[in-house]
């Protein structure tokens, strides 16, 4: 290993000339091993210690892994499925597969066996790299239906000693074989790496999709590398930055951040010790570049608020006093706008006493660039972090664009826009409001699905996002209202934008999810999911006893609280004449959380409207009928795939509606 640090170049494969730049991920790896050889490339906390690998060390490991794949017969054009939590070796296996000319296909690790079967069968994966026994078991469960799967390689062999190893390997054994095979196979590997060009497939990612079967999005090296370069330059990312890799490896964002941008800039990717230690690890690493979906920020803010309620009176007073200052001037200071000296001094004192320690506790002390995306973030939540001096911004993207479509530049950040077009991205809005884009990151095709490809991407390369939005006058920032197909008309022709309303509801800590109905109807109704953490805590404070989620959800006081929230949302919607028809007239609180295991949400926690409409048709009928409560029985899927039934009686509440628009609303 020390040899490799001193002399990375001879064993690291070809590097393309400076004119074109490295044209593949393996070429970037070789470049980093030469340029940043001694800098940390990957870290993982294991056995209580952050273990790290430099670029030079990682390059050697990855090459050995690629040689191991060669020795096991991996061919160019093969597909390699990767299933597991974020670990350096699994990232390496993706690059090693690319070196062999194969295509890595990362899968969602929490997918049940059935979902995995579809993807594995669709891409015809020959090799499966699994993180641990749990993932191996899932593959073994469905292997009879997957004739293409030849080898299962696992990272953590625990519990599998007694398994039949005829078609299985420990990753460590494969790497050892690769090292041993280095002399005779090295030339072949170099040839395969040299054959990779900008148009070779870099990765295939399955979109979870809110409707239908997942689609395999093929992204080329050009897509990934150009997008990584543009976005890194946009935010000034550089070697020396630190990120925490904790989001699913199958998600395009993780691929862009932890492979694309990491390889392009040479920054360090840190993997948590386990999913449960993510918050502790975040604090220990203190990333400088950080991405989290809104729910992570929401969860953290909820925790902070709950803990502040338990703090002493002095601390509470300090917190509220200085947070008021921060909310008033913090965002302006962050954006570099003029702020009075007295306010600057107050803010500096607050930073010393409150914001600094709080950021440290959250793990956000060193963030230069933070992003959130995927769902709308509540303005209070967004402003809270900005007020603390954390440069949290929004972006808008999707798998088919290699993430980036729009981003907010520093100094132009607001909670209700998603920013300006990313470098190299062209945008246009169709007549029906749907957003179209064309960019270097635009995907090649949906794998084995020419029909969907043609429906999404036209001959000139314009891609339909499926989202409806508009450019804000004056700033040129894009605003997204809703999914284009979800934007509908009510019976009297008024605009129906369910997500717009749902997002407003979800900004309340007590509400985890909401589903609004009303397309083609005369008025809107809603399902609400309570947030067990927030409502449970509230119940405890108010001496409300409950024994289950179901019981808590139907408690009269909880219903009263939600009713008050909905009344507020209705009032705010009524202020916008275009959307006034979307006020919620009747609602009920669901007796179970909407869950991806039940197919009600995607793995990225987006509501699957059609599934819910079918599954809960009795509840929707009750909302539009006159009844005051309804008995229902629902099938649920447990984490291990077994199914059960829960029964409940749900109370239907009427919500206060503000009269306005073309007609009087409430009865």
């Amino acid at each position, binding site marked *: 290993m020390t040899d490799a640090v001193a002399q990375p170049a001879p064993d690291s494969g070809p590097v393309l000339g400076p004119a074109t730049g490295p044209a593949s991920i393996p070429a970037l790896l070789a470049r980093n091993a030469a340029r940043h050889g001694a800098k940390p490339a990957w870290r993982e906390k294991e056995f*209580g210690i952050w273990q790290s690998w430099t670029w030079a060390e990682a390059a050697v490991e990855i090459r050995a892994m690629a040689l191991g794949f060669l020795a096991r017969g991996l061919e160019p054009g093969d597909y390699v499925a990767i299933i597991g939590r974020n670990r350096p070796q699994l990232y390496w296996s993706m690059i090693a597969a690319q070196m062999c000319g194969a295509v890595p296909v990362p899968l969602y690790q929490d997918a049940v066996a059935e979902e995995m079967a579809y993807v594995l069968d669709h891409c015809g994966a020959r090799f499966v790299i699994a993180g641990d026994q749990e993932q191996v078991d899932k593959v073994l469960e469905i292997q009879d239906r997957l004739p293409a799967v030849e080898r299962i390689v696992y990272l953590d062999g*625990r*519990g599998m000693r007694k398994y039949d190893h005829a078609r299985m390997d420990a990753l460590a054994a494969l790497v050892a074989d690769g090292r041993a095979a280095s002399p005779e196979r090295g030339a072949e590997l170099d040839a395969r790496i040299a054959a990779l060009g900008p148009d070779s497939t870099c990765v295939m990612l399955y979109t979870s999709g809110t409707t239908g079967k997942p689609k395999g999005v093929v992204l080329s090296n050009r897509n990934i590398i150009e997008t990584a370069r543009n976005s890194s330059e946009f935010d000034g990312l550089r070697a020396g930055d630190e990120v925490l890799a904790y989001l699913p490896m199958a998600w395009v964002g993780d691929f862009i951040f932890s492979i694309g941008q990491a390889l392009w800039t040479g920054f360090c990717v840190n993997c948590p*010790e*386990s999913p*449960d230690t993510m918050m502790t690890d975040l604090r220990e690493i203190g990333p400088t570049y950080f991405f989290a979906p809104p729910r992570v920020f929401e969860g953290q803010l909820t925790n902070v608020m709950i803990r502040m309620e338990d703090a002493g009176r002095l601390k509470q007073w300090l917190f509220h006093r200085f947070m008021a200052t921060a909310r008033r001037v913090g965002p302006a200071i962050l954006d570099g706008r003029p702020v009075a000296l007295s306010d600057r001094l107050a803010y500096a004192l607050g930073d010393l006493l409150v914001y600094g320690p709080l950021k440290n506790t959250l793990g956000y002390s060193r963030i230069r660039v933070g992003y959130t995306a995927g769902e709308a973030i509540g303005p209070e939540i967004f402003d809270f972090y900005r007020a603390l001096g954390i440069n949290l911004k929004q972006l808008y993207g999707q798998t088919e664009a290699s993430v980036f479509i729009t981003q907010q530049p520093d100094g132009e950040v607001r909670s209700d826009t998603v920013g300006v077009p990313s470098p190299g991205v062209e945008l246009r809005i169709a007549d029906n409001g749907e957003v179209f884009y064309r960019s270097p990151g635009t995907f090649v095709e949906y794998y084995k699905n020419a029909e969907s490809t043609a429906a999404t991407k036209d001959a000139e390369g314009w891609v339909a996002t499926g989202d409806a939005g508009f450019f804000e006058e004056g700033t040129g920032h894009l605003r997204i209202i809703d999914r284009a197909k979800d934007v509908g008309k009510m019976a009297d022709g008024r605009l129906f934008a369910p997500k717009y309303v749902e997002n407003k509801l979800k900004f309340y800590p007590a509400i985890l999810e909401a589903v609004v109905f009303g397309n083609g109807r005369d008025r809107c109704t809603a399902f609400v999911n309570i947030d067990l953490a927030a409502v449970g805590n509230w119940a405890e404070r108010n001496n409300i006893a409950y024994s289950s989620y179901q019981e808590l959800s139907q408690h009269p006081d909880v219903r009263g609280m939600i009713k008050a929230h909905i009344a507020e949302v209705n009032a705010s919607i009524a202020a916008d004449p275009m959307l006034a028809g979307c006020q919620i007239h009747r609602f009920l609180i669901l007796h179970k959380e909407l869950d991806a295991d039940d197919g009600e949400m995607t793995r990225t926690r987006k509501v699957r409207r059609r599934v819910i409409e079918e599954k809960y048709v009795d509840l929707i009928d009750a909302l539009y009928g006159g009844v005051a409560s309804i008995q229902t029985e629902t099938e649920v899927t447990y984490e291990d795939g077994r199914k059960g039934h829960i029964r409940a009686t749900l109370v239907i509440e009427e919500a206060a509606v503000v009269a306005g628009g073309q007609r009087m609303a409430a009865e």
Partner: protein
Amino acid sequence: MNAPSPDGYTTADGRSIGPVLMEMKNITLRFGGVKAITDISFDIREGEIRAIIGPNGAGKSSMLNVISGFYVPQEGEVWFRGARRPAMKPFQVARQGIARTFQNIALFEGMSVLDNIMTGRLTLMKSGLMAQALWWGRAEAEETAHRAEVERIIDFLEIQHIRKTPVGRLPYGLKKRVELARALAAEPKLLLLDEPMAGMNVEEKEDMSRFILDVNDEFGTTIALIEHDMGVVMDLSDRVVVMDYGKKIGDGTPDEVRSNQAVIDAYLGVAHD
């Protein structure tokens, strides 16, 4: 399989079980006039998972306490690793390589998970009290080595997220796992588990079963356990001793035990007259 050969046997799932590790010969234990255990003999073989089951008050816990050296039987002999064991203090038994968990969790509630598990390595520490207190001499290197072992166990039992949490704040199921970790930290030859699944829900039981199997598989630790839950016992164990009213009424593989009439009677409750 009624009489395994002296060198061991092979289980149904292909694990090879070694020679006898511990042998109980004609053990009788009395508390005053009450006979808790009457003339019981059985052996525990290297690498096996051996269960002791029986209805309430059958004498299971007393048996475990005899194995762990807490009770000294009035009659009978305990043989461990080929030698007859004289009456010993429990800490001497621990040094011989026997570790245990308790039915009612016995952890240091105010200490962190990490510190609790470190106490499990006490019998393996060589440096003196002063050296340890002063963090001097080989105490430092020794603690580092012990910590590395403890971290391996933390990783194995998937309790990284509570490493620094005081045990008193943990839910019951996790406390049980921490106790198992502490017992494992002693690197025992024989691990005694006193009702490891008591009070757990189905999911916790499944987790614990997996950990017990994995411990046996990964570290080759011989495990003797007492358990109420018949389903769990039958799935986990290689051989089962069944006790009732202080007497042994069955001994064999789970299948043999399941079809033993005396055992069925004891569990289904036949009138004793």
